[in-house]
């Protein structure tokens, strides 16, 4: 296909504005997928994505479209996730495209991530095509929404692009607008190869598969390629395109999107954002790539069975291939043994990784309560970053503690200004500004600690605004804070995996909630088990799990044997899922108790 007739684009939207449904319609209209193979949200391949109704992974697909001008065009769509945790994936998709379709819900209008994603696309220099979706809804207000897009984002709205992706109306007009307005890719087929890796996944037969967008030159099977960041050289075993299934082709030229397999075994050799070039005639410079995403939420992951450690490590390695933002490194806990400290983009990301490890790799995990990263300046002038409360320095050594702050943007109906501000206050927020998007809708901006926003903030925001508020945030940097490490002792032993970092003013409340919660979760042992929360050597809250004195089925005759056996088997199975700390058996859930005390407030 000649370059003139290639269009590379992505779809960006606030969550639930209908991005995946519109993508489904494109696949149907272009015949990329036969109707009988069509399932809803076709590009959301993971079970988890379908179950949760969200897009996690970006997923490219190539479509052939005969336009109204009678010519056939090659369209490469790169689907993007909508949840705020995954906004980094959006910027990765953007770097591989020339245009973006901005989908806005005709009843809800511009939301926080509409703005965030639109700005990302503008910064990336993309042609943006606003599309108003869900016009079939009785409550649709396309005129109002069009005005909002123009006022808030300064984008011109083409009134013909009002669609119902659900019913299929207006979908073809969007494709036509795409062809007319999005520029074809530039690039020289004979120049030295420059291909951007925008994603990867691991295939047990072919090794690591790199998802690439070719900017300059051509890549073909048998060619020797070089990774520009590491200098390592591989031979291309297969190149192909996404139909959306992977289909081998002879070569990929400038402007094309596809994949490449080169027998790459090592995760580190196919870094997302890296540039692939030809080993024999390398390009002078790599492509700009994009900023490395840094995880902001950390937690420990430990196998319940110590023998599963190696399996966990290899599962993490494979997962990492599919998930550039996820990080892990080995750590050791006095309580839990050998495991990993893992870094995530947010709580949803963490839950998803945890769920995938359990489902796809059959692992039994203990996850510790998540925390953010802290910057501590010691009295001797050293600066350390701490991503694990267990590594918190002694109070005597600490000069300044800083924690990450975010600037949070909330868009909400004006009726909820009061409740949103109340929530912000509760979460140590600092007011920045407020502006009206329309007489009914307002944008509120606050600075607040990241740690306050990652724990349960979003669901609280949703419930106190009846689901109407939307949220976006960006990390702005570190600020000094009065923080303490709260330690937890079970039967006199500090359980490092239960330590949490809290603000001074919250220490007492959190300590009480924590010991109370643990008292309910730790099963009775054969002796009294004191549970204490302490700051330094000062115990500030205490509960006791009373000793188990009597646990016997007294009436047991012939008919009870099977029942009795099953009961004991269940009891034994429950024990298996516990972690022995000192003399006490602690169940998995206890390690997340620190997190859950927040839920019940």
């Amino acid at each position, binding site marked *: 296909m000649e370059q003139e007739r290639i269009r590379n684009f992505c779809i960006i939207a606030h969550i639930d504005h209908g991005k995946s449904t519109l993508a489904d319609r494109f696949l149907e209209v272009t015949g990329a997928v036969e109707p009988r193979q069509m399932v809803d949200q076709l590009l959301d391949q993971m079970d988890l994505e379908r179950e949760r109704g969200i897009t996690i992974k970006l997923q490219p697909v190539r479509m052939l479209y005969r336009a109204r001008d009678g010519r056939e065009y090659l369209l490469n769509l790169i689907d993007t996730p909508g949840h705020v945790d995954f906004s980094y994936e959006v910027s990765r998709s953007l770097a591989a495209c020339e245009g973006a379709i901005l989908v806005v819900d005709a009843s809800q209008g511009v939301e926080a991530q509409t703005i965030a994603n639109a700005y990302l696309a503008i910064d990336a220099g993309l042609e943006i095509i606003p599309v108003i979706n869900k016009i079939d809804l009785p409550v649709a207000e396309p005129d109002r929404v069009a005005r909002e897009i123009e006022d808030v984002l300064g984008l011109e709205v083409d009134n013909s692009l009002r669609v119902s992706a659900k019913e299929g109306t207006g979908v073809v007009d969007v494709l036509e607008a795409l062809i007319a307005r999005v520029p074809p890719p530039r690039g020289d087929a004979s120049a030295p190869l420059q291909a951007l890796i925008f994603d990867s996944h691991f295939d047990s037969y072919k090794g690591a598969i790199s998802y690439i967008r070719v900017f300059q030159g051509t890549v073909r099977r048998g060619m020797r390629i070089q990774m520009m960041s590491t200098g390592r050289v591989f031979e291309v075993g297969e190149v192909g395109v996404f139909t959306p299934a992977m289909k081998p082709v002879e070569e990929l030229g400038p402007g094309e999107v596809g994949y490449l397999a080169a027998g790459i075994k090592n995760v580190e050799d196919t870094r997302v954002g890296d540039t692939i070039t030809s080993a024999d005639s390398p390009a002078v410079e790599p492509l700009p790539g994009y900023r490395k995403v840094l995880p902001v939420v950390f937690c420990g992951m430990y196998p319940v069975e110590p023998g599963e450690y190696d399996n966990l490590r290899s599962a993490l390695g494979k997962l990492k291939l599919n998930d550039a933002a996820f990080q892990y490194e080995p750590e050791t806990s006095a309580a839990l043994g050998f495991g990993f400290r893992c870094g995530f983009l947010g709580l949803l990301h963490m839950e998803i990784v945890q769920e995938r490890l359990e489902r796809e790799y059959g692992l039994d995990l203990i996850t510790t309560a998540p925390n953010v990263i802290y910057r501590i300046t010691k009295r001797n002038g050293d600066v350390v970053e701490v991503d694990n409360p267990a590594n918190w320095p002694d109070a005597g050594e600490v000069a300044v503690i800083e924690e990450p702050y975010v600037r949070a943007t909330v868009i909400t109906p004006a009726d909820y200004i009061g409740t949103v501000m109340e929530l912000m206050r509760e979460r140590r927020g600092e007011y920045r500004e407020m502006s009206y998007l329309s007489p009914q809708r307002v944008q509120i901006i606050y600075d607040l600690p990241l740690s306050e926003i990652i724990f349960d903030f979003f669901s609280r925001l949703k419930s106190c605004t009846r689901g109407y508020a939307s949220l976006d945030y960006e990390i702005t940097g570190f600020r000094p804070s009065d923080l303490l490490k709260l330690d937890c002792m079970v039967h006199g032993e500090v359980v490092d995996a239960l330590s949490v970092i809290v603000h001074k003013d919250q220490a007492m409340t959190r300590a009480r909630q924590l010991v109370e919660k643990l008292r309910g979760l730790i099963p009775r042992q*054969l002796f009294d088990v004191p549970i204490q929360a302490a700051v330094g050597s000062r115990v500030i809250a205490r509960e006791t799990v009373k000793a*188990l*004195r*009597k*646990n*016997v*089925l*007294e*009436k*047991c*005759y*012939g*008919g009870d*044997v*099977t029942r*009795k*056996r099953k*009961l*004991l*088997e269940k*009891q*034994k199975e429950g*024990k298996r899922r516990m972690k022995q700390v000192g003399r006490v058996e602690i169940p998995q859930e206890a390690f997340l108790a620190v997190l859950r005390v927040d839920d019940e407030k």
Partner: protein
Amino acid sequence: MAGLALYLHIPFCVRKCRYCVFVSRPLAGGGAGKTLVQDYLRALRREIKTAASLAGRQSLGSIYFGGGTPTLIDPSDLVSLLEETRERFDWGEDIEITVEANPGTVSPAGLRLLRDAGVNRLSIGAQSFNPEELELLGRIHGVAEIYLAFYAARDAGFDNVNLDLIYGIPGQTLSGWRASLEKAVELHPEHLSVYGLSLEEGTPLVEEIAKGCLQPCPEETQVAMWEITGRLLKGAGYERYEIANFASPGRQCRHNLTYWLNRPYLGLGAAAHGYFNGIRYANHSDLETYIESSLQGKLPRAQEEHQTPEQERTDTIIMGLRLTRGLSRSAFRNRFGYSFEDVFGEQLAVMEQEGLMEENEGFIYLTERGCLLANYVLAHFV
């Protein structure tokens, strides 16, 4: 102890006690109830015949009529069931035949009839000697009926009588329990079964506790009750031979020993369980289904489970350790071909360290504390 054990279930009661989860049907007075009982008895006699043709003409070591309330039905009906067993099986020379008898449902004449027909052991469901507790449990009788039943049993010639007692009743105090226990001992029964009240989901008693109308008996009190029970009964000449069972010398219940030694037995009647030819089975618990199935000449079983060697081992251990004397090492080795320590040496050592188990003269057994925590201990051996 030779001979097969035979359990016969009589699933009828005057009304259901408020703590009970056993299969039994309250019997309304009048014709409908009578017909159902007669149909049931026919089905049960038929099952005896069917089971006997399967098992062969074995010698019986014990027969046990449980319920429900076996003494609610006409004694002559029980006698005809006994005759059926005698016709289809051989009664062992010193066969033990027990009938569960509930105060308020026995008469001197009826007991004499049973005694004459060969019943030689009576198990009386006394439960408590405190009228308020009997009321709370939903028993149909008062204290007086317990005495009447007990003396009637003696008068009828029963020299082997058990009394069932329950402790840990909501509102029961330690001294209240001691009083019940002492009253029971004053009657000099040969055997005592003492159970902590078990609160079962779905019973009226549990619902009242959930609603907050009743307070369950605190665990510390129950432990104290358990401890005085052992002391008091020992002083009165009874030996604890199983977690919940005490007997005068030579008066252990042979039928129940079958269960604890994990030996085969036939359970007949609705909802009865059995263990025979390596199969654990449960009969239909719905009366009508049971009756229909049995009268068609089938084994009226709802479930069957072929025991694996591991299951047999587990059952042998968890039942055997209930006995005070414990699990016999040599019997274990003879039965399974390897020693207990071969599989559970490590766990045994841990339990001994915790003071929950001990061993001597070829037996492995639970300590008194181990008995109180039996579920915890036994979970190590499944």
